[in-house]
């Protein structure tokens, strides 16, 4: 059974993908670390930088 943090992390990365801040692949990798509180500053920055560079961003 998912912990509250895991449920919440899944909701957060879904929103970030919807708003094209993250790619779906990056979101998949980010979600467990986000839930466990193990995200370092560079773990936040890098996928968002890559997401920002996406051409299909509106």
């Amino acid at each position, binding site marked *: 059974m998912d912990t509250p943090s895991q449920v*919440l992390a899944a909701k*957060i990365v879904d929103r970030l993908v919807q708003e094209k*801040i993250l790619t779906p692949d990056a979101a998949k990798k980010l979600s467990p670390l986000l*839930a466990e*509180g*193990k*995200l370092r500053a560079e773990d*936040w920055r890098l996928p*968002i930088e890559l997401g*920002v560079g996406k051409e299909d961003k509106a």
Partner: protein
Amino acid sequence: MSEPSLKKLTIDYLRGSVTPFVLPFEKGKKLTIVYGENASGKSTICDAFEFLGKGKVGSLESRGLGKTNKYWHSIGRVPADVVVTLETANSTCLAKIVKSEVAVDPVAARPRVEVLRRSQILSLIEATPADRYAEVSRFIDVSGVEASEATLRGLIRDMDGSREIAIARIQENQDAIGQFWSSAGKPGTEALSWAETEATRDPNESDLELEALAKLQAAYVRLGDYPARLKAAEAAIQAAATAATAVQAKADEQLQTIAKDAGEIVGVLEAARSYLQKHPDPQACPLCESTEKVEGLSQRITQRLGSFSALQATRVQVTAAGRNTQQVEHQLSALRDSAKKHAEEFEQARTGFAWSSDIEMPLASAPVDIAALANWLAATAQLIAAWKKAETARVDKKQFTKTLKGALKTYVENVATQQELDILLPDLTRTLEIVQEERRSFSDSVLAKIAGDVGRIYEEVHPGEGLNKISLELDPSKRASLSIGASFCGQAGAQPQAYFSDSHLDTLGLCVFLALAAMEGAESTILVLDDVLASVDEPHVERLIEILYAEALKFRHCVITTHYRPWKQKLRWGWLQNGQCQFVELNRWSSHAGMTLIANLPEVERLRVLLGNVPPDPQSVSSKAGVILEAALDFLTQLYECPVPRRPNHQYTLGDLLPSINRKLRESLRVDVKTGADANGTGIYETKSLTPILDELIRIAQARNIFGCHFNMLSFEFLDSDAVGFGQQVLLLMDTLTDADAGWPRSAKSGSYWATAGETRRLHPLKQPS
């Protein structure tokens, strides 16, 4: 995947189970109601589930016993004797005490159990906000996400700082470039484009010229020494010649004073001495070959040579003076060659580079004749200072370009940093907003769901009392703090502990427990409620029971223990939804028999059993049927508001009740009996009229009094079949009117008939015909 259904719970020597006790579970029923008077073993059943699911015995806690393990086993037994076994449709799970702890085997089959006891019912309501938070934290604890959120917040703070620094540096760099531009005389239109052009210059350009200039100066400096060195060389030649002449004159003079042929004689003697050193003992004179005076010849030669020593010394000086003269002449020649060579090198340095126009050069080439060098040097002496000045100017220019380049590079880097952050920061900030929004929304929605469920259940128990607006709120100023509020007399957020009655608080506590238990894997949870109805006041008990029926279906299984006697009676009379629940009754506990079950049948089933006996007992059948018929007629007369004689004790006989259902009503009473459902799930019904049954009962109702109530000689004249027929008619009435599983048709929700739960029976009409 749904969890397997329960088959049997066996309790060996846990607390009240002084003998092995088995609680079988009926197939297809998810609710088990365990009825028993006080001290019948109800709590032991709850303890057994808690022992198995949670590894503890909660009923002993908070009794001042300290660690309770030593009281878990039955009197006369030891901890190792305690075994609780739960058998399900596909597994058996066993729990026992090993080294004071509960060991479960297999662990994978250990059931999830939630237990609420009467003593705990107010624990969550009356808890401190922190303890209340701890109770619900498993649903809203998102500390992992909060930690990641803090990291993101720190990243944004750091990047904001970096952006501010970049902006400040850009300003500093712009100022520095502006100053360079000013010092360069503000060429072009503006500083930045000028700086970019300057920065493209090849730094080696001035390096090569500086290198050539250094070589030129070094070559010039080398030439500067030669005039002085020429003078010194010429003076040395002059001195050497003078010295040689003087020593030769001295030697000539010495020769004249000794003998004219002294020189030759010295030569002969020196040769003889050299010979005699090699041949120390000659037999004859090496010159005349005479043997006379040969003895001591060597000593005599040495003595004669001594007399010529002064001349010898002078002759050495003459030789040395000659050599010295030759040497200084050679040095002068070498000096001339060197001067020539260095003059040529200077010319190579001068002509081998394309000098800038601001660098002065000699008007004439450097002379290769050393004698002309002094004049040439004098004519070009001012050039050294000019070249130094040109060199300094170039070094300064190089440093200027280097500093300008550095400033421009830093400027470009900081502009790039700012641009990068200007793109990234809004996304990071938006990400933080999303994390915060989702976190708050998550906690709020979970708490709202819990509060909503609590309110919904509570409203069903206390409908229309307006106390259902329950709120659970996190205190934003405190960590892990949860407050509970309710609507009371129009005041929202009132503390229920302050305003609610004890009974209302008990109900609220139970509602909170049910809502929390259902939040987390209800379908895999065995819910155990230990005597929780005890403090609920009578008007609300029935509704609470109905709610427990409904809520129990959400769980894997629900076990409710109670000593609420009306529940037992209502179940016996089939007034409740018996189909959903299994009712078991415990005997009073005894130290030798322990916990035992009582067979408990609903009244209608008891009548069916009596009728099934061979032969049936007329008195028992008619007595039981009479009581059941009274219950059915009491139900119908109340449902249709039929007139009956008014009496203070509300006791009615069949003679009162049967006639009160008048002919018009009797002829209109019919029941749709559900016999199945079609492919769409719509019920299929068979309509049965109650008229013939009631007519027949009116005809034979006297059998009840004759056989079932008193000793009556009239019964001698009746057949036993009359009593049995009466019982069969009552049974037919009950089977038509009621459903053993769904209860009696009490609901008028349809607006056109009375129905049981699930509409397994539809009783028409809704109202007595006029």
